[in-house]
C-alpha cells in the first residue's frame, strides 16, 4: 500500500461518480436546480405574506432565508450521499470493488470528495442567485469561504450518517423511510425557516439540540449582520460540528466495518 496506489484508486473511484452524474442528465439538472426550487417556493409564498422584518432581524426574508437554504442543501446532499453506495451494495458492485486490492477506505473517501464538491458548487449557486436577487453578503468573499468550510464540516457528519444507514439497512425501502424520518424534522425543528424566537417554547428546546440550528445560526449572520455578530456563532458552530462529526464518523466506521469485514 503506497500513497501512489491510494491516490490512483481514489481518483478512479471519484471519476466514476462524476461520470455517473454526467450520464444521468435528469439527475444532473435536478442537482443544480434543486436549491433554486427552494428559493422559488419560499420566495413566492412566504416572502410576501409571512415575513415580518422585525421578527427576522434581517433586511428582507430573502436574505434571512439564504442561510437556511444553504444549510438545507448541505443537509440534503449529505443525507443522500450514501444512496449510490446503497445501490452498489445491493447489485454487487461494492463487492466487486472490495475484491480488488484497494484500501478499504478508498470508496468512502471518493464518495466524500464527490459529495463535497457538489455541495460546494451548490452553495456557490445559491449565493449567486441570492446576489442576483439583491442579497449582499455582509462579510464578503471571506464570508463565503467560511460558509463553505462550515457547510463541508456539517456535510462530513451527514454523509457519514447516510453511508452508515446504507451499509446497515436490510432493504432500500428502509433506507429511504429512515432518511425521510431524519430530514424533515431536522429542517422544520431548526431555525432554517423561522427564527428560534418566533417558535413556541417546546420547539425552541428541540431546535437547540438540533445541530442544524447551530450551523444556520453561524451562516446567517455571515450573510446578514457581519463579522462582529458572526464570529462567536461561527466558533460555537465549529465546536458543535466537531462533536457531531466525531460521533457520526465513529458510527459510520463501525457500520462500515460490520458490513465490509
Amino acid at each position, binding site marked *: *500500500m503506497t500513497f501512489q*496506489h491510494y491516490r*490512483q*484508486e481514489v*481518483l*478512479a*473511484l471519484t*471519476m*466514476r461518480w462524476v*461520470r*455517473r452524474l454526467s*450520464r*444521468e442528465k435528469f439527475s444532473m439538472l435536478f442537482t443544480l436546480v434543486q436549491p433554486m426550487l427552494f428559493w422559488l417556493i419560499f420566495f413566492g409564498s412566504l416572502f410576501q405574506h409571512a415575513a415580518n422584518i422585525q421578527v427576522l432581524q434581517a433586511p428582507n426574508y430573502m436574505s434571512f432565508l439564504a442561510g437556511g437554504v444553504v444549510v438545507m442543501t448541505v443537509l440534503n446532499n449529505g443525507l443522500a450521499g450514501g444512496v449510490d453506495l446503497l445501490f452498489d451494495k445491493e*447489485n*454487487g*458492485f461494492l*463487492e*466487486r*470493488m*472490495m*475484491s*480488488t*486490492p*484497494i484500501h478499504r477506505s478508498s470508496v468512502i473517501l471518493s464518495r466524500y470528495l464527490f459529495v463535497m464538491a457538489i455541495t460546494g458548487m451548490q452553495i456557490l449557486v445559491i449565493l449567486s442567485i441570492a446576489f442576483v436577487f439583491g442579497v449582499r453578503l455582509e462579510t464578503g468573499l471571506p464570508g463565503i469561504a467560511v460558509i463553505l468550510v462550515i457547510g463541508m464540516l456539517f456535510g462530513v457528519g451527514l454523509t457519514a450518517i447516510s453511508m452508515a444507514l446504507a451499509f446497515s439497512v436490510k432493504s432500500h425501502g428502509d433506507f429511504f423511510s429512515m432518511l425521510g424520518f431524519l430530514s424533515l424534522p431536522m429542517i422544520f425543528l431548526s431555525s432554517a425557516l423561522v427564527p428560534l424566537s418566533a417558535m413556541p417554547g417546546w420547539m425552541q428546546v428541540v431546535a437547540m439540540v438540533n445541530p442544524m440550528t447551530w450551523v444556520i445560526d453561524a451562516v446567517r449572520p455571515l450573510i446578514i449582520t457581519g463579522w462582529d455578530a458572526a464570529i462567536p456563532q461561527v466558533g460555537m458552530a465549529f465546536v458543535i460540528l466537531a462533536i457531531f462529526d466525531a460521533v457520526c464518523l465513529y458510527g459510520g466506521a463501525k457500520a462500515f466495518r460490520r458490513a*465490509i*469485514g
Partner: protein
Amino acid sequence: MMDPAVVIDVARLGKTFGPVTAVEDLSFTVHAGEIFGLLGPNGAGKSTALRMLITVLPPSTGTATVLGHDIVREADTVRSLIGYVPQERAVDRFLTGREHLELLGGLYHLSRTETNARIDELLKLVNLEEHADRVAKTYSGGMKRKLDIACGLLPNPKIVFLDEPTLGLDVQSRLKIWDYIRQLRENGITIVMTTNYLEEADQLCDRLAIIDGGTIRVIGSPLELKTGLGGDSLSVTIKEHEADTLPRLREGVMALPLVRDVRLNPTGLDILVESPEKSLPAVIEVAQRLDCSLDGIEYHRPRLDDVFIAHTGHGLRGGTPDATEEE
C-alpha cells in the same frame, strides 16, 4: 507420479450468519491449471464459500490459503492475485464497458498503457469491441455477463473465481462462455466456479465438489464420481416362459472377462460391466449359445444426476431441461 501443485487449500472453513449456518467444515484443494467446480442447489452455500476465498467475507471458522497466502491475514496479497466474476450482473448501468475496465485498471493499480493494452485484449476475447463505448444499460444479459468476465480477467489473474457464470443465459451465450473458460484453462489460468447446472459441471469441470446444505458431500472428477456409483451396467430381460433359463445365463455371463458382477432380478439380470460397448455383443453371444431368447437389453451409464441423488438424497431440481440427455 508427482502431485499437481496445490494453488488453493481450504481447511475446515465455515461461515454462520447469526443463527444461519451458511457453510460448515469445507475442506478441499484446487490444483494449478484445473477447472474446479462447486455444484449445488440454490442456498447450498456456494457463493458464501467463494466470497470467503476472495476475501470479501471473513470466515467464522477454519482457514484457507490462495497461492500460499492466508485469506484473512494476507487478504490484500490474495486480492492482487485473483480475479472475480460475481453472481449478480454487477455492472454500473451508467458506465460504458470500457469505463468499467478503466475503473478496474485503477483499482488494480495498473498503469494507463497496461490498462489500455489489457482492455483491447479482453474486449477482443469476449467480442465486445463494437459495444465498448455504449453505456451498460443498453447491454443484453449475455453482453453484461461478457463484460463481467472481462472485468474479472482485467488484472491478468492466476486464479479466476466465477460465481454461476451462465445462470439465466440462453444456450448460445452459455456455450460461448464455456469456450472462454476453456480458453483460460489453456492459458494456464486456474478456475474456480460454482454452478447449479449438472450439464455444466459435467462438461466443463475437471474436478468438482458436490455441496448441499452447506457441506461438501463428495469430491472428484465427473468420471470418478460416476464410476464411483458402480459404473456402467446392462439390464437383460428374458421372455417370461423361459425364466428357467436364467440361472444358466447367469453362469455364462459371469464367465465373461469384462463382467464385474451379475445380479438376478425377477425378470432378468443386472450386469455390472467395465465397458458396455464391448460387453454388449459378448452377452448377446452367450445368450444365443445357451439358447435363451432375450426380450430386451438396455445399457445404463450413471449420469451426474445419479451421483447427485446418491450423495444428497434428492435431485438437484425437479425435472429441469438441463438434465443430461439419455444415452
